[in-house]
């Protein structure tokens, strides 16, 4: 079974400024671009499915030159090869454009399963998996906390997290599947993996290679536009009190606060 796993490089907005434990200085390295956290779970799931049923795992990433770091990380976790969609014309792409470029890139390879994270931590839209399924005319099985591929490799079943609990969803392959972080525990790249990744093939594709018109993507093709933005007033620093140990002082002060705000 051949799997393509889509990974995105994102600014490391999650880890806020951190101190370096070695010398207690600001760890500037910590704000580097990183692989979108949720995509690590997608890579891990791809590798586990491969371990169970063979085939190849291909990494697909659309992003600037620096995204090669993210591609390398997926390869060092164990993926076999990669496709990097790289073109200056893609700068400023929205979800419609991203899904277009990714769908065209998928058209250059053969696969049974496309795996994605369910959300990128920068865009936070959670729409690319659904959009890819729509564009490719493939079944959409998203927000999976569990993925099972039938022994004959013909179908896939997931448990989809929902607002109420979960749904069991089933489809034949090929299919598009997105995963949530409850699905597994991503492995760390081993030293051997990191060394091996350096020799793995990475194919770089431009818009021209994909047959995508520059007017349909990037800033030129943006289907929505930011009009203006403003910085919200910073949160006022709050009051923090210390409880004396039996709960009374803390509770009393808290209830006064809540009463002042008319919550009680």
């Amino acid at each position, binding site marked *: 079974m051949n799997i393509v796993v889509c990974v995105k490089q994102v600014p490391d907005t999650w880890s806020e400024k951190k101190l370096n434990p070695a010398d207690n200085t600001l760890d500037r390295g910590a704000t580097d671009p990183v692989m979108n956290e949720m995509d690590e779970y997608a890579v891990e799931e791809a590798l586990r499915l491969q371990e169970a049923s063979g085939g190849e795992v291909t990494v697909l990433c659309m992003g600037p030159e620096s995204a090669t770091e993210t591609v390398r990380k997926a390869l060092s976790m164990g993926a076999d090869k990669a496709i990097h969609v790289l073109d200056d014309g893609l700068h400023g792409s929205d979800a419609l454009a991203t899904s277009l470029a990714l769908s065209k890139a998928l058209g250059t390879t053969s696969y049974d399963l496309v795996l994605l994270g369910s959300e990128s931590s920068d865009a936070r839209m959670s729409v690319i998996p659904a959009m890819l399924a*729509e564009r490719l005319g493939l079944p959409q099985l998203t927000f999976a906390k569990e993925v099972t591929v039938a022994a004959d490799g013909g179908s896939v079943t997931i448990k989809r997290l929902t607002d109420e609990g979960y749904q069991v969803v*089933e489809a034949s392959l090929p299919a598009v599947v997105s995963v949530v972080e409850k699905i597994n525990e991503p492995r760390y790249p081993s030293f051997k993996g990191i060394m091996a990744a350096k020799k793995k093939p990475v194919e770089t594709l431009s818009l021209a290679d994909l047959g995508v018109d520059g007017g349909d993507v990037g800033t030129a093709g943006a289907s929505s536009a930011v009009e203006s933005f403003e910085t919200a007033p910073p949160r006022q620093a709050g009051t923090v009190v210390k409880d004396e140990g039996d*709960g009374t002082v803390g509770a009393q002060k808290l209830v006064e606060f809540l009463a002042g705000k008319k919550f009680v």
Partner: protein
Amino acid sequence: MAEILVLVDHVDGEVKKVTLELLTIARRLGEPSAVFVGSGFDAAKDRLAEYGAAKVYVADAEELGSYLVAPVAEVLAKVAADSSAAAVLLPSGAEGKEIAGRLAIKIGSGLITDATDVVSDGGTFVAEQPVFGGSTIVKSKVATGTPIITVRPNSAAPEASSAAAERVDVTVELSDAAKAARITERVVEEKGERPDLSAAAIVVSGGRGVGSGEQFSVIEALADALGAAVGASRAVTDAGWYPHQHQVGQTGKTVSPQLYVAAGISGAIQHRAGMQTSKTIVAVNKDPEAPIFELVDFGVVGDLHQVLPVLTEEITKRKG
């Protein structure tokens, strides 16, 4: 006046509050029409009429509910084309966003997700979105096609305004692609009688500091005293102390209540992603260094098992 389509969020005709919020916003933009997919329209009709839906497009074919997401996008694409709607509004949950994404591709329109308001600026619809955890407010508009905008729950106060809610039946011949992912089982993890997490005005959440599933009763007791919904951190849902649908955060629900109480929660960035736009934030944590204290309006450094029971009792007494 042009029609503004609002996708109704409902369970067997029981209309969720977010729908009334969306109808209220839609009324400022044009003439609100509801799109009702599934069974139970008769039960929903009065509410939709009360909150201003002039028309309700009803697609209630049984097969619509058997497949994931795609059928609803096909219904909306058809209604949008037939009605020449000026915009489509959907609730900004996981499913609403996926429907919106597929619809955007079907009708070649731009998409804005997670809006907290939409206003008309001389006929152009401008959506407001909080980004970077609410530290920046972006105003955007759709440049291509019919604007498709998903709006977060709690973005507007529902205002009644009676209208006819005239039923217009819609039949859609589902494509094979829309029938590709079949739902074979639905499992509901019971959440009891408390208010719905996404829509609640007050949320009381517990984290790993609560200690166990049994001890979560201290969180429930405080929630009940305040009339609040119960939330949880991922540490709690992963440990099986409380069902996943109560998880607040990046992979849980995004909540924006009037009051958020975090007890025994450290305030990891993935948790904050789901709650930091709450109006008032309160925390109880025994670690004075816990990052949650950076966000609070009021914090208590202390043991939640000491503080919460006294607090609950005091609130009950004052309300009593």
